[in-house]
């Protein structure tokens, strides 16, 4: 039974959460919906591990939907990069679902919690679909599935600002997705194909036409909107700040990462590295990335809401990934892909801590966090370790990705860039210290309600994430070798 299923794993990975979502609506019961979401997340996590192993040992998997041969039919293609990103998304989903019940039940009205799990499953479907599909238009469909459901997730936030944050994200997100299909349409017009592998073969003939250059422009801006590339990030801070805590954890750790994956896929699997000689996209990305890491880290220092602070820090971190792409070298791309994985773990851990804090004190304002170091010692200790990882302290994952990024910069002889990366890490020390200072060195205000540590099912996911921050910081074999071979296959041309 299992062996007959195994060739169909790529499609099961997408269809499983897609079917589970409406089942949650049929039951309309919080407990059942949570159980379904939990089981599906862990099953998907298992499938990702199996797929990654298969890809590492046997090379890319191609799955033809309905057995229609490419390029006529839709192809699902799992190579090492997509398997790696899929592992990120599913592992975060699996961890978040263990954490979710308490936090969700406190923040979302009980008659709507089953909708939260439904929308979570749809977002999950969309994100997995983006990573797995080998068809440029199919990618748009999954992009919209994940985006539309994440707008709903954000609007579930308790404050009214969540509604406007969701609508603003909806408007910019739709503009971004539409820009992307304009680009895909222009490519189709020139090549007559939508299959990514096929596009990569046929594009070089027409690569220097204006139509293709315009397509590159539209797609860059479209994906830039999705990944929160400076200055297209304006939707991101509010969306992260006002969404329910669990939603912020999930989206911050996965959605922007998948958008970076899209960017890698389009630039390197479709257009190829020759594109950068036709249009100076790499220089543009480098400049925007540098502005992002410096200005957004500086803006983060002045935030009074901890979730918003970390949201700005996320925009800065996307800057690091974009700088890695702009190098167009194996080391640079290795740094980007590593940082996808590492930043997902860092931000997941940090936002989980904030969700736990909100669960106890009903606020994530930094001034309200006074004295938490004593009141919630295990939670706040996790915050410190994950924070060290964000800063890039050795023995944590943050150090590994910054190390490769700086290595890549030096390889290209970009001394000033390496220097600016260090400067922006120092800015991160300032905003991170702000929270630590208040949590550890200020007493709880007089008369404040007694608070205790969060329950074990919230503490455990936090420490699993923090533990993996340290584990993958010391034991880098798996992540670095996977990232490096993904980077090599991207630079080498066809996936």
């Amino acid at each position: 039974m299992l062996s007959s299923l195994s060739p169909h794993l790529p499609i099961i990975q997408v269809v499983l959460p897609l079917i589970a979502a409406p089942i949650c609506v049929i039951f309309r019961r919080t407990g059942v919906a949570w159980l379904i979401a939990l089981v599906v997340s862990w099953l998907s996590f298992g499938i990702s591990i199996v797929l990654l192993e298969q890809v590492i040992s046997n090379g890319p998997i191609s799955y033809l939907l309905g057995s229609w041969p490419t390029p006529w039919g839709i192809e699902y293609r799992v190579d090492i990069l997509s398997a790696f990103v899929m592992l990120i998304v599913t592992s975060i989903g699996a961890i978040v679902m263990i954490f979710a019940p308490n936090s969700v039940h406190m923040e979302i009205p009980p008659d709507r919690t089953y909708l939260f799990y439904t929308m979570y499953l749809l977002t999950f479907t969309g994100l997995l679909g983006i990573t797995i599909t080998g068809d440029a238009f199919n990618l748009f469909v999954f992009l919209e599935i994940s985006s539309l459901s994440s707008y709903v997730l954000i609007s579930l936030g308790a404050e009214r600002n969540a509604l406007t944050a969701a609508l603003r994200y909806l408007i910019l997100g739709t503009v971004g997705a539409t820009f992307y299909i304009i680009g895909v349409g222009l490519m189709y017009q020139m090549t007559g194909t939508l299959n990514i592998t096929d596009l990569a073969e046929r594009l070089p003939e027409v690569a220097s036409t204006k139509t293709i250059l315009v397509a590159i422009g539209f797609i860059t801006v479209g994906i830039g909107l999705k990944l929160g590339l400076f200055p297209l990030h304006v939707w991101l801070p509010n969306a992260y700040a006002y969404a329910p805590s669990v939603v912020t954890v999930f989206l911050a750790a996965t959605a922007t990462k998948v958008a970076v994956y899209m960017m890698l896929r389009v630039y390197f699997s479709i257009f190829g590295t020759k594109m950068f000689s036709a249009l100076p996209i790499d220089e543009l990305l480098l400049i925007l990335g540098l502005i992002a890491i410096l200005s957004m880290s500086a803006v983060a220092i002045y935030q009074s809401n901890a979730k918003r602070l970390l949201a700005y820090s996320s925009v800065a971190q996307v800057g690091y990934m974009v700088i890695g792409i702009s190098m167009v070298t194996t080391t640079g791309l290795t740094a980007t892909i590593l940082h996808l994985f590492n930043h997902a773990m860092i931000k997941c851990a940090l936002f989980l801590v904030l969700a736990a804090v909100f669960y106890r004190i009903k606020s994530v304002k930094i001034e309200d966090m006074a004295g938490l170091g004593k009141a919630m010692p295990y939670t706040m200790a996790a915050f410190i370790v994950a924070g060290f990882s964000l800063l890039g302290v050795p023995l944590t994952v943050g150090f590994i990705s910054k190390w490769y990024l700086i290595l890549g910069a030096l390889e290209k002889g970009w001394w000033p860039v390496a220097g600016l990366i260090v400067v922006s890490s120092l800015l991160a020390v300032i905003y991170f210290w702000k929270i630590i200072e208040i949590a550890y060195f200020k007493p709880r205000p007089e008369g404040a309600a007694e608070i205790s540590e969060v329950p074990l099912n919230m503490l455990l996911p936090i420490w699993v994430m923090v533990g993996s921050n340290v584990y993958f910081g010391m034991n880098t074999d798996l992540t670095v070798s996977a990232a490096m071979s993904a980077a090599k296959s991207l630079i080498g041309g066809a996936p």
Partner: protein
Amino acid sequence: MQLPVEIPGLLNYWIVIVLMMVGFFVVISHGNLVKKIVGLNVFQVSVFVLYITMSKIDGGAAPILDDAIKNYSNPLPHVLILTAIVVGVATTALGLALIVRIRDAYGTIEDDEITNQERDDA
């Protein structure tokens, strides 16, 4: 079937560009949230026209297996656009639903008044 008037070659593409810019301009410039959603719709429709135009060829018939039909239009972009239309409808529905909730919460659907209220909150 031959159209009574020959459509000049690039007319459709000009329409696409005009619609796109009009829609985009409305999204950016109008403060009324419903108008923003309408602008977004016009913007999306321009892309539908782009796809449909590129699949049409001179004298092309519907793609039916028949000996009489030699030239036919490419049906694939039409199918793609059916999907995109569904996405557009879903986006509009969700956007309007959010606007209803925003009006309940703020008592207005003007962007600048909402921004003022949010500033007062903070």
